[in-house]
């Protein structure tokens, strides 16, 4: 797990929405939060980003890759979005801005770049701090939200969960 050394913070609302995405796994959420030293997440406050990312990874460890992708997807499918974000390209391009709305105060919090190879494929490079499968779920959620049947593949060149500095996702839609 990569960490921030610059004391960044993470938006409680994002973490709260992720936990909501877990739906029926209330006991699991309760256990993980208890282990992390809290009873619940306050969507209105900001948390230490390393602590928040640890919560993500603790849940990832318990539910596995497939479920983590599903939760990320559900999070985006149900999240409120500003009007006008109604096609897959705009959604993918807007991921970096969305990420920056949920982190603050650190210089090493990473970001998301998105490049389109053509009308039907994109390449996203993520250097954020969360688990890799959650990112895949978020991308899949962006595509399915606008009805795009997309294929999201992890590109070569390393994975953040295995010590890499970034993850590249190849999206075909």
């Amino acid at each position, binding site marked *: 797990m990569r960490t921030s050394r610059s004391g960044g913070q993470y938006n409680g609302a994002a973490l709260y929405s992720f936990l909501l995405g877990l739906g029926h796994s209330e006991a699991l959420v309760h256990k993980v939060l208890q282990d992390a030293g809290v009873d619940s997440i306050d969507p209105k406050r900001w948390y230490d980003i390393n602590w928040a990312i640890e919560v993500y990874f603790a849940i990832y460890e318990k539910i596995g890759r497939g479920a983590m992708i599903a939760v990320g997807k559900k999070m985006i499918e149900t999240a409120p979005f500003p009007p006008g974000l109604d096609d897959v390209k705009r959604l993918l391009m807007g991921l970096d801005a969305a990420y920056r709305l949920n982190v603050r105060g650190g210089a090493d919090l990473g970001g998301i770049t998105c490049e389109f190879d053509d009308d039907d494929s994109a390449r996203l490079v993520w250097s954020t701090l969360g688990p890799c499968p959650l990112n895949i779920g978020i991308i899949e959620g962006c595509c399915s939200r606008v009805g795009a049947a997309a*294929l999201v*593949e*992890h*590109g*070569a*060149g390393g994975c953040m969960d295995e010590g890499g500095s970034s993850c590249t996702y190849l999206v075909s839609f």
Partner: protein
Amino acid sequence: MQAAFAWIEHERAGLASQLAERLAGRAGSVFRSAGEATCTAIAEGLIAALIADAASGKDAAGREAMLALVQRFSGALAYADLRHLATSLRSLVLAAASGAEPGERQRVEDWLFQLVLVGAMRFVAQREQTFQEQAARLEVRQLESQLEELKAAFAEKTRLLEVIRQASTPVAPVHEGILVVPLVGMFDAQRAQMLTERLLNAIGEARASVVIVDISGVPLFDAEAAELVIRTSQAVRLLGAQLLLVGLSPGVAQTIVDLGVDLASLKTMRSLQDGISHALALRQLRIAPVVNGPGRGR
């Protein structure tokens, strides 16, 4: 007059180097990770296959090159990589073929189409195989995990059974020289062995001369159980003590008779009370009422 497809040979070096450059230039692609030399080899192989197939009028070389490519990057190749390769090759080759005869151009289009089909087919087959291997590994992991759980459950069950056996074979000294063993539950060979061991120790420790084994709590007392008690009785006798078998219900007695089991070597009695009376008598003792009338005793 120019030979058929002469333009491909003419453009060969340029096509290969441009294709290699595109393959190596795409961030996150498996080709870039493999390095420039690999990209050059792949590009040169594909252009060579195109030339060979153009000359032969078949698709065999292209097919072989694509199969080898998918095989080479087994498991790591993404659909996006395949797509990038196909679109890059197509755009470069068609650009080079812009001045070619329409028939040759069409032939190249067909060849590219076949190349995509073969690549997609092999890609899907490869991925299917990967999924199957992953599923098999997952199943094995699940089975191993279930096996571990079963082993743990079995060990716990064995431990509990041992506790129950220990607890259900008590040896109680009821009077000097007299031991009572109330048996409860199934009486099998393992339990008989445990009973014999405990009994022999207890006889030595208590210097007992009579052992009363009460089987009224044994639900099934068959020929095998009777044999086991007889053996225990023989062992008890070797220590100079006598075993009394009590608690035989009419049903058990009938069963023993029906089975033809000879219990002549055992002293049997109907109830524990009878057994205790007999044991006391053997030790020349008896239970007498405490006389506590007016003016007598306390």
